[in-house]
C-alpha cells in the first residue's frame, strides 16, 4: 500500500508509527478507566462502544493495515463472537472469560477455514469476497433456528449494580488489542506482515511463507473482532442478525483505522475516539442529519488527511509537506 521509504520520508518511520502517538494513546486509555466512576449509564455505554469499535479497528488494522489485505468482512467475526456468548448463555454458562475464550477459539478456526481459499485472492477481489462472507453469514444465521433465526435471542445480564463489569471487560479487550498490535508489530511476525504488504513476491523470495503469515494475521484479527463481539452480546442483552452483523460494525472500524492512521499502533484507538465521539455528539444534537454529517466528514478526511491523524504527530516539513501530500495522487 504505502511504500516504506515514503513513510520514512514523511516522518512516519518505524513499524509502530509515531512513538509519541502511542504514549498519548496509552495515557488516554488510562483516563478511560475512570469513566464508570461518573455513575452515568449513558457515558458508560458511549465509551464502551468506543472501546468496542477500537478493538475491531485494531483487528482490521492488522490484516488491512499491516498485511495490506483490505478486509470488508470483519463483522462476520464480530458476529460469530457475539453468538458464541449467546450460545454459552443459552447453556447456562455466564462467564465473560469463557465467552471471550470460546470466541477466540471459534474465530481462529473460522478464520483459518475461510482464509485458505479467500486469502489466495488479492486486492479488490479479496475485499469483495470478505464483504460477501459477512453478508452470507448474516443470511445463514437469520435462517438457523438454533441461533434464534431472524427473531434473535436474549443473552444473560449481570445485575444492574454490577453493570460496569462489561465496561471493564471491554476495556481489557481493547487494551489487549493495543498491546498485541504493539508487540506483534515489533516482532518478526510484524515485519513479515509488512513485507507481504509491500511486495508479496519479494517477501516469498526472502523465505517468508506468505500463506502462513497471511492466515496468522487474519486469525489474530478475527480473534480481536470476536472478543469485542463476545463482550458486546451480554452487555447488550439481546442479539439478532441485524445487530450482530450491522453495517455500522463493519464500516466504522475501517473508517476509524484510516482516520487514525493505517498500519500504526496508536491510529485505530485515536480514530475510534474521535469518530465515535463525533458521531455520538452529532446524533445527540442533529438526530435527523447526523449520518449526512458523518458522510461529509469521511469525504473531508479522505481529501485533507489521506495519511490519517497519527501522521500529524510525526510530520516533518510542516505545512508544506502537508500541502504537497494533498496533490500527490491527483489524476
Amino acid at each position: 500500500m504505502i511504500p516504506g521509504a515514503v513513510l520514512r520520508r514523511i516522518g512516519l518511520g518505524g513499524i509502530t508509527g509515531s512513538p509519541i502517538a502511542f504514549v498519548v494513546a496509552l495515557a488516554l486509555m488510562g483516563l478511560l478507566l475512570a469513566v464508570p466512576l461518573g455513575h452515568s449509564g449513558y457515558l458508560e455505554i458511549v465509551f464502551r462502544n468506543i472501546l468496542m469499535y477500537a478493538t475491531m479497528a485494531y483487528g482490521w488494522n492488522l490484516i488491512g493495515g499491516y498485511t495490506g489485505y483490505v478486509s470488508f468482512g470483519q463483522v462476520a467475526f464480530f458476529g460469530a463472537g457475539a453468538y458464541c456468548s449467546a450460545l454459552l448463555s443459552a447453556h447456562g454458562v455466564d462467564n465473560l472469560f469463557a465467552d471471550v475464550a470460546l470466541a477466540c477459539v471459534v474465530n481462529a478456526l473460522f478464520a483459518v477455514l475461510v482464509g485458505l481459499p479467500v486469502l489466495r485472492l488479492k486486492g479488490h477481489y479479496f475485499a469483495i469476497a470478505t464483504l460477501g462472507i459477512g453478508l452470507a453469514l448474516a443470511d445463514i444465521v437469520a435462517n438457523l433456528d438454533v441461533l434464534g433465526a431472524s427473531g434473535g435471542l436474549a443473552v444473560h445480564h449481570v445485575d444492574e449494580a454490577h453493570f460496569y463489569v462489561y465496561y471493564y471487560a471491554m476495556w481489557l479487550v481493547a487494551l489487549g488489542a493495543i498491546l498485541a498490535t504493539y508487540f506483534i508489530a515489533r516482532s518478526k511476525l510484524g515485519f513479515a506482515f509488512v513485507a507481504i504488504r509491500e511486495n508479496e513476491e519479494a517477501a516469498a523470495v526472502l523465505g517468508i511463507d506468505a500463506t502462513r503469515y497471511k492466515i496468522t494475521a487474519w486469525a489474530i484479527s478475527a480473534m480481536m473482532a470476536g472478543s469485542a463481539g463476545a463482550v458486546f452480546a451480554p452487555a447488550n442483552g439481546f442479539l439478532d442478525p441485524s445487530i450482530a452483523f450491522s453495517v455500522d460494525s463493519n464500516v466504522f472500524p475501517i473508517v476509524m483505522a484510516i482516520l487514525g492512521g493505517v498500519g500504526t499502533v496508536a491510529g485505530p484507538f485515536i480514530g475510534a475516539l474521535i469518530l465515535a465521539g463525533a458521531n455520538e455528539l452529532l446524533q445527540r444534537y442533529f438526530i435527523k442529519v447526523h449520518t449526512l454529517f458523518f458522510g461529509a466528514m469521511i469525504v473531508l478526511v479522505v481529501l485533507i488527511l489521506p495519511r490519517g491523524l497519527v501522521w500529524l504527530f510525526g510530520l516533518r516539513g510542516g505545512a508544506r509537506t502537508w500541502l504537497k501530500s494533498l496533490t500527490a495522487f491527483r489524476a
Partner: protein
Amino acid sequence: MQLLAQDLVNGILAGGILAVVALGFSLVWGIMNIINLAHGAFLMLGAYLTYQLFASFHVDPFLSLPISFVVLFALGYLIQRFLINWVARAPILTTFLLTFGLSLLMVNIALLIWTGDQRGVTTAYSGANFTLAGVTVPWTKLFTLVAALAITGVMHVWLTRSKTGRAIRATSMDIGAAQLSGVRVARIYAIVYGLGAGLAGVAGTLISLSYAVNPGMGDPFLIKAFVVCVLGGLGSVQGALIGGLVYGIVEAFATQLDITIGTQHISGSGLQDAIALGVLLIVLIVRPTGIMGKATA
C-alpha cells in the same frame, strides 16, 4: 418443466437489469481502478428522479430514461472532476472510503427530501402481462430487458468506435501512453465516472418500474453489481451482459430452493446474499478473470 421454463424466463428478465447495473460499475472499476461504492446511491437517485417526474408531470418512465442519464452523468462528472480526481491515483482504500462517504451523503439527502417511505411508479400498463406456452411474462419487464440490451449495445459501439470511447479504452490500457498521445486523463476520468453514474441512473429508472423506491434501495444492487462484474470480467461490456444474465438465472433457480433437515427449514429466498457469495467464491477460485475477461494484472 413449466416451472423450470418460468424460472429461466424470470432469471433472464432480472438479469437484463443487473447487466445495466453492473455495466457502469464495471467501467469505473476496470478503467480507473476505483470501486465505486456510490454506485447504488446513483441508482437510487435515478429511481427517485423517475418517480418524481412521473408523480409530478406524468412522464412515462421509459421517456425519463434519457433524462436520468443526462442528470446523473452531469452529477458524476462534477463529482469526479472536483473531488475524486484529487485522489484518483491513491491506493484503493482511499477512493473506496471517499465513495463510501459520498454514498452516505447522497442516501441521507434523499432521506431528507423524500423521507424513508416506500414509493412506487405505477403506470397504466404496470400489471399487464402475456402468456406464451404457459410462461407468464410481464410487459414492463420485457420492455426493461429490451432497453437493457439496447443500452449495452449502444455502449459497446460507442466505446469501440467513437473518439472518446477509444480514448477511454486507451487510458485503461496504458495511462502513460494515452497521455503521450494527447489524451487528457483527468477529463477522461470525469467522463468515465459520469458514464458510470449515468448508467446507474438509467438502471434506477428501469428498476423503479418493478421494485419499490426508497433511499436504501441501492445497496443490494451494489453487491450484485460486484458479483456480476467479477463473473463477467472487469471493464468489459459483453462481460457485464453475460454476467448479469448468468447471475439472474442462477438466482432465479436458487431462490426456489426449499429443503427441510430435521426441524430446520431452509428456504432459498432468505439466502440471497449467501447464494451471491457462493457464486462469487466459485468463480473467483475457478476462473478469477471472469467469463469474458482476459488475463491481466
